[in-house]
């Protein structure tokens, strides 16, 4: 059985956060603060995006002493296309409004 990702409001918020600076690497806590999605919801979504091949991940390379390396994330090319499509579709259904317009 394939992995399915439900386009919930939390998923769309995370996708929007990752699309804000597409080439930039994000870390979990920053996404959490940006989207207000709690860690218990954020990481399962990131894990599914990773399994679907829409998320690039890597461990932080230069780490100050005494601190563990952090995991970094950004959308792949396919992931970005899919994320744009999902956000557009959600906007058309009026299920989702971009953060800028909400503000």
């Amino acid at each position: 059985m394939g992995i399915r990702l439900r386009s919930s409001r939390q998923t769309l918020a995370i996708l929007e956060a990752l699309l804000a600076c597409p080439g930039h690497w994000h870390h979990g806590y920053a996404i959490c603060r940006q989207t207000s999605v709690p860690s218990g919801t954020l990481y399962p979504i990131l894990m599914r995006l990773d399994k679907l091949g829409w998320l690039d991940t890597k461990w932080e390379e230069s780490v100050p002493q005494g601190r563990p390396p952090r995991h970094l994330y950004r959308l792949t090319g396919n992931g970005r296309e899919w994320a744009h499509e999902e956000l557009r579709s959600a906007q058309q259904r009026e299920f989702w409004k971009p953060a800028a317009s909400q503000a």
Partner: protein
Amino acid sequence: MPASRQSLSFRLAHSSLQLALRHWPDESRQWGHALAAELDEIEKPFEALQWALGGLMLFSRASASHFLAWLKLPVGSRLSPTSLLPGSSSPILPKRSRLFTAAILLSTAVVLFLPQSREAISTVRASWNGYRGYDSDLRGLQNLAARAERENDARTLAFVSLVLPHSERATTFANHAVALDPALVWIYASSRVDGRPEFEPKEGLARLLESDRDNAVPELLAARIISEPRYYALISHHTPSDQEIEAAVTTDQAWIAHMDRAFRAPRYDGYFDRHWQLTREVWNHHPELSASVIFNSLWVHSLPDVLSIRNYGNYLVHSAQRASDGGHAAEAETLLKRVDDFGRRMSEQGQADFEHVVGLSLSHQATTQLRNLYQTQGNEHKAQQAEQRLKVIDARIDGLVHSFQRLGPAQARAFDRRALFVQLSAALAVLFAIAAAFSLFALELRFLKPGRRITQLRHAVCIAADWAPLALLLGCVGLLWLFQPYAQILRSARSLTSASAAWHSLHFEGLFTLSSTLGALEQPFTPVRFWQSFICALVALALFVVVRGFLRYKLA
């Protein structure tokens, strides 16, 4: 490190995530590390706690998902292929998944949890040692007594005092029960299976004699206390003649006095029906009581001493003969009529078949002598009446003999066949339970490493892991189905009001066929040893196979 990071909240968040990471499933552990690494970026203690809580939720989801994936694999397999030894081939595994096996075992547990199944298992288990009972029965009775003492439940206390082996506690329970309900004084009449009176003669019996004055049975029990040691002493030396047995007790005036009062008493009540009513009442109130307990309750019921009754009957008959020879025909007639009257009371008011037989036998002896006496006197009318009475007695004795042989050969064979199937299904269920437990533990705990020279044994264990749980379920369902006629017997026994009918139903038409060795209905007290031996032999065989496999492995 900032001071806020040393706060309790931060330390709690950190330590809970570290603990979760230690047990995190391998396949998603990196995500746990990713989440934990972010904790150092969080400044506010409350946010750190929230973050850690999210981490614990993620850990729960990962663990549940890991467990589900593990359940879908066959018994003995691991999720990670890296568990294989270097250079070893993939292990031989059962075909069925853990989920299937767990579902089968759960279904078996549900079947076993049904009250009908528990009754079947308890009864069949009790039959395996001839209904002599197990330690668990004794513990159950002691718990029952403890509860009854707290609740001042006189009847349950009386029941427990009857079934418990002779002890200080049993006497205490009996005294407590009688103190709560004086009508239960008859329990002092019951004895242990070996025939020795359970009560303290000076106390319990005295109370019984005092409270049931017009009943012959307490007097007979008092006489038994005098006669029994004398009979034992005689029997221990040689096989005594009838004259020796009679002389052993008829010289004792106390014994004569008890027997005289017993023979003159207007009433005969052996308390058997009261005993059964009490047993039935407690059994209906506590249906979990095993068949052993119920049987033991019936077995401990004290019956009057046949030898003493026969001896005193003979003593009176001989006295009558002497009176007749001395020309005192009226005295002879009175003595013989006293014997006949007692026999009549015993056969008509007694509640056990045994009492009917003994009473009729006494009446037969006395009436024969009466007929002879009347014939000697030339009183044909009374001699004819005595002859008629003898015919009635003979007919009743014939009727009783037939009632002991209710089952024809075909019915007896059918009972034996049914008992065989019940025992077979129970024995197979035990065997399959052992096989299932052994195979599942051996595979899960990896007693049998893959890639070794015990491939054949592993094959056998995998087949057992695949089929034994299913066979166990079928065995349990089979036992439940086959036990239905016995369950019906137990159900109907619970509603019987006559002790004699209950005795017949439970013993000769029912549960003793289970306990008898195969086809030996005429020896109902023979406990089953066959299935115990059969199970032990198969367990020994399984152990032999395992040890042999282990030794071969070590040698290799």
